[in-house]
């Protein structure tokens, strides 16, 4: 089999798992964990396309993944800070508590 396919399937499954978890868990931290998993899945697909993709390019895919890691680190820091603020206001980290923007 084409080696790109199993790699991409792993990425897709990872993404789906992350999505499911992010939707199902109520703890905001775990939702964030799910989002991190989704980000990692996207990263994996970048790397896979860099390695096996139909358009061979020396470095762009790698660079994209590298920048994505950096952005994910920033995202995690800000997200977790937000969760701490949420916890301070509501004494819980459940996302259901953070619904005051209700329409």
């Amino acid at each position: 089999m084409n080696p790109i396919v199993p790699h991409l399937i792993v990425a897709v499954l990872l993404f789906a798992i992350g999505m499911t978890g992010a939707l199902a868990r109520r703890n905001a931290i775990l939702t964030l964990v799910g989002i991190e998993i989704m980000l990692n899945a996207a990263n994996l697909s970048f790397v896979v396309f860099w390695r096996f993709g139909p358009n061979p390019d020396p470095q762009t895919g790698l660079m994209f993944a590298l920048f994505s890691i950096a952005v994910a680190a920033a995202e995690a820091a800000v997200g977790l800070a937000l969760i701490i603020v949420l916890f301070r206001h509501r004494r819980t980290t459940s996302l259901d508590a953070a619904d005051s923007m209700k329409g």
Partner: protein
Amino acid sequence: MSPIFYFLAMLTLGGAVAAMSLRNPVHCALSLVVTFVGLAGVYLGLGAHFLGLSQVLVYVGAVAILLVFVLLLTRGSGKDEFDERPDRWWPALGVGGGLGGVLIAVVLAQPGLALRTAPPELPTVRALGESLMTDFVLPLQVVGVLLTAALIGAAVLALSDRRRTPQDSGPVTSREEGETRR
């Protein structure tokens, strides 16, 4: 496709499933680390050495620690009572499963994903660094600014209520205790 890849893929996916389904949030965070390490292994197998090790350094060394710290700070290490109600799981599984199924179908259905004939020449770290400083200098600067902003923003967010909290609980009660004890 070496067996190592399948092993790592199993590790990654298993870690992810565990991270999303375990009861105890700290166990989830630790399973997440397994996913990260497995992914790093996959990267290494694909020849992206620098990326794989950066993944370990950033995710395991920093993000996971941060997660764990926040879990402890928000007293999230105990059982989460909300997660015991399973009513959320079915719609979530529906969306996630649907997404996964559709995307897998897409991957399998694409004939255009041809294997590259010649394996790419793996870039050296030096080449990576040089292209970071030339072709990607603007993204690099932007990411630098973003990281700085995120750092400051996170610090400000986490510190912002410092003034309000002492009135709620903290030192007032302790001083009262001190007074009474005396």
